[in-house]
């Protein structure tokens, strides 16, 4: 569990957070991944994404991503008109390669994270987050 104190400590470890400019093409997700990896192969696993199964509020969905040993992590919201969310870069002072933020999701979609490892390899994780107009509880 990421506590308030951890989050503050994490802030010190993150060297830079770069917002990705909008990419509007149909293959925007693939393009963003290619730009991040330089076209290198990406393996599944090794990236943990903590997200609600169903968003309580699609306008501000808490997402936490962690990949042990990652130098940087690209986060994408695959179903948004502009899928790019952020790239988290972890400097040498980072205790863990973990970041938490809140993002806006325009509808039910996959949130994807690509991690660049210290050895230059890439790993991928994805979770589906459902955005609903609300139902009726029992």
């Amino acid at each position: 569990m990421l506590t308030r104190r951890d989050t503050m400590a994490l802030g010190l470890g993150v060297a830079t957070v770069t917002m990705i400019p909008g990419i509007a093409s149909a293959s925007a997700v693939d393009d963003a991944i290619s730009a991040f990896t330089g076209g290198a192969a990406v393996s599944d696993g090794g990236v943990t994404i903590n997200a609600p199964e169903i968003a309580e509020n699609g306008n501000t969905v808490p997402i936490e991503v962690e990949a042990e040993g990652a130098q940087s992590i690209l986060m994408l919201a695959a179903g948004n008109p502009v899928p790019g969310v952020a790239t988290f870069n972890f400097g040498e002072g980072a205790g863990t390669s973990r970041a938490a933020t809140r993002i806006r999701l325009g509808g039910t979609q996959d949130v994807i994270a690509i991690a660049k490892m210290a050895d230059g390899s890439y790993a991928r994780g994805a979770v589906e987050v459902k955005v609903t107009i609300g139902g009726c509880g029992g």
Partner: protein
Amino acid sequence: MISRREFLQASIAASALYGISGFGNWSKLAAQQALTQDDLLRFDTFGNVSLIHITDIHAQMKPIWFREPEWNIGVGGVAGKPPHVVGKDFIEMFDLTPGSADAYALTYVDFEALGRTYGRMGGMDRVATVVNAIRADRPDAILLDGGDTWHGSMTSYLTEGQDVINVMNKLGVDAMTSHWEWTFGQDRVRDVVADLPFPFLGQNIFDNEWNEPSEEFEPYTWFERGGVKIAVIGQAFPYMPIANPGWKFPDFSFGIRESRMQEMVNEVRGQGADLVVVLSHNGFDVDRQMASRVEGIDVVLTGHTHDALPEPVIVGETLLIASGSHGKFVTRLDLDVRDGRMMGFRHKLIPIFADVITPDAEMASLIEQERAPFKDQLEEVIGHTDELLYRRGNFNGTWDDLICEAMIEERDAEIAMSPGVRWGASLLPGDPITREDIHNVTTMTYGECYRTEMTGEFLKVVLEDVADNIFNPDPYFQQGGDMVRIGGLGYHVDVSAPVNERISNMTLLSTSEPIDPARNYVVAGWASVNPETEGPKIWDVVENHIRKIGRVSLEPNTSVQVSGL
């Protein structure tokens, strides 16, 4: 030939657990007019720990009729598995006798006729008698309340749940979790919990600002019984701010939080728990999936989806207990816990037959005292019904048909929408309809009956969205209610189709014309989760309608066609 129940016992033995489940074969006795309280309570005390589970009372303090569902569709991996078994299939699966008291309590079959034979069920004064009898057997039995307790009646609405809270405190609850309690607003919850003589648990209640566990509510609590250390972990309803108005409890976030559940189990095991119990309001399918993925839980006391099962469902070595709703049942679960693990169990789902179980005098008196200030309002007869009125089931019940009819008439609408909640008592043909009866199926803190326009396209979005909350094959994406009830509009639903492809053939019933995606339709509805919804209270709309018609009679509702089963 090996019976199903014998098979259950054998399979448990194979996994080093042993146990029996005794719903009791007293139906023959009932036929002989000899069903007694002793029969209902008979239980050979077992092991060294007793749990008593009650859940989803929905503020029903008095005995009621409650018809179990005719439709309870399971999709994906749970199709055909309990609790997605109803009627005759249920009777066969659990080896019940058709027409018996147990078949009446657990299924919808011949509900009216059997209701007249066996009578109403529930009533917290009868529940008190049962709880006291279990405690006479096992004085340190632990009473756990699965939530949806404070809300669901006219008296609870008028007292913000205080009548129920007083009754539950007298009953001697040891811990609870929550759902509709929150619809009274976070300030009310905080005020009540501050004075509650037991913990209000939820490992998944989070501080919304910081997205970390709330410091206001405990994730778990401890009991020590006969040298056994017992941890009870709470799991509140995960989808509170989605299914109910989040603006009433803006400081809090919920969610399933499976990984934190595993952390909590590991934490209590690390602190020496011999027995780990999860007191849950997840809903049965969510609990079944969680039990298969989180290691180290011995017992899940399920709630939310109102299922009553006469035997535990066993996932790995975890027992899932389903204790019904509306005070209709109490579960007693005796456990043999030794050497740091659960070795065996004895289980009984005790049906609360109101005419068989003697009311506890002190509790009966407290309930009457709580009702006294409102008695005239509660018991005023508004009309009568010639129909069996019920709600529970995946699609429209007759109560919903009546409510939708009232909205169309009173609000001059083309289409009416009524929420697919699972609470609400039934009425038998010939019964008077009191104001309290109307509240039992409509009461809420956001009961404004709105009137608005929606395009045909948006109506489909609504139906698709709600259908996916029920029929998504992954239980973690289900919210646990039933399909939104519709008046004035027919449709076809393929429950096995993917999201946004389940609904077709939408038809405006008044003209038999297909719904035009581009046209605006006048829609009345209630229970909007949006703030600042305007309109008269839904119970007043229904009361006005019933007053005008005097006696309720309804055409059979064939407006929903279902496929993909």
